[in-house]
Structures are given as structure tokens and as C-alpha cells.
């Protein structure tokens, strides 16, 4: 099992991670815990799985891409 994990913008800088992989996990929240050394889960962090918005408790599968990022500020 391999899941690609990405961090963007201020979260990437704060966590010091751009991209990484995890071998096993069942939810996006578990991936957050594994890749951030169990950092507190910020309430305003957005989660995406395979380019679609998701939640910390959303299920993940082998080959998924999971991303964490702060509130968006485009436009």
C-alpha cells in the first residue's frame, strides 16, 4: 500500500513537508498524524483525496493522493 501525501502554502512551510508517502493508513486523519508527528489537527485545515474535498475521517485506499492545505485565498 502506498499513499501520496502533499502539503501546500503556509501548511507546507509550517510543517516543513511538501510531499511524502505513507505505507498504510485508513483515514486522512491518520495520515495527518503519521506525517506531522501527531501535530494537533487544525480545525481550518482543508483535506483533499484524489483532488476532491474530503474530511479527516474520510477513508483512504492504496494509490490515493491526499493533500492538506490552509483556507484558500485566490481570486
Amino acid at each position: 500500500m502506498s499513499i501520496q501525501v502533499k502539503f501546500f502554502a503556509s501548511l507546507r512551510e509550517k510543517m516543513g513537508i511538501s510531499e511524502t508517502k505513507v505505507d498504510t493508513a485508513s483515514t486522512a486523519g491518520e495520515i495527518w498524524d503519521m506525517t506531522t508527528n501527531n501535530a494537533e489537527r487544525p480545525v481550518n485545515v482543508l483535506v483533499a483525496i484524489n483532488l476532491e474535498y474530503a474530511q479527516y475521517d474520510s477513508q483512504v485506499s492504496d494509490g490515493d493522493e491526499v493533500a492538506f492545505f490552509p483556507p484558500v485565498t485566490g481570486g
Partner: protein
Amino acid sequence: MVMKLLSFHLSLAAKMSAHILEQPFEPFNSITEHQQQSDISKQFGATATFIGSMRDFNDDADVSSMMLEHYPEMTQRYLDKLEKEANQRWALLDSLIIHRVGKINPADPIVLIACWSAHRRAALDACSWLIEELKHNAPFWKKETRQDGDRWVEKNTDGL
């Protein structure tokens, strides 16, 4: 001007296109070019547009430039999805979204939304809906350069 297209467009029943650009663009030229290339002439009676440009201030501080980051695959997918939904909700003949990424200077256009329809209400309402949805949900992030250093913009304003 040579514009580098990072992503390209999809075409469905109504014409739609969303582009994410690394290079500056001239929105009024983009609208004209898009309209000339479209085959909807003599069908549309209304064109509604929104252009967002960079200010040289934010929260009472001077801003000298800005870096706009995005999540390329998800951002393109999200813009395409927004146009598709707008097309389902309103009777649009065509729509165009262009959004900058990379380094942006004050007065540079950041975003263009243009909607074409037979009558004004569809174009106006779709244009307004598209910019609000884009600002609230499309994965872009602004980092401002100020005299006291760089700072991530934490949230968009409510637009008032």
C-alpha cells in the same frame, strides 16, 4: 504577448474554458479573442465580466508584490467543475475563466470571469456565482511581500 497555458480546456454542450497562467495577461484582449474564436456570435445578447486585480495595500499595509500558489491538478479540475455547474444552473452560451499564478505585481489582473448568454440575467448571475465560488473554494493561496517581510493571506474578505 505569448501566454503560456499551464492547462487547457474542456468542451461540453456549451462552450467553456478555464486557464491557469504563469504569465501576465490582458483581460480585455482575452475576452475579445475568446469571443472572436467562439461561434456564438449573433446568439449572445449579454456578456458579463468580472476582473480582479492586485491592490498595493491590504489590511492597511503596503504590499509590493505577491506570489500565488496553487495545487495544479486539483485547481484545474475545480475550475472545470465550477464552469460545468454554472452551465447546468444557467442558460449560458459560453464562459471563460483565467486565473494567474506565480509572481504578481500591483495592478496586474489576477482573475477574469466572463459569461455569455442570450439574455442578461443568466450571464450576470452566473458571473457573480462563479467568482464567489472560486474565491471560497478553488485551491489558490496568496503570499504577500510587505516592507516587514512575506506574509500568507489567511482568508479572503467577504467582498464588501
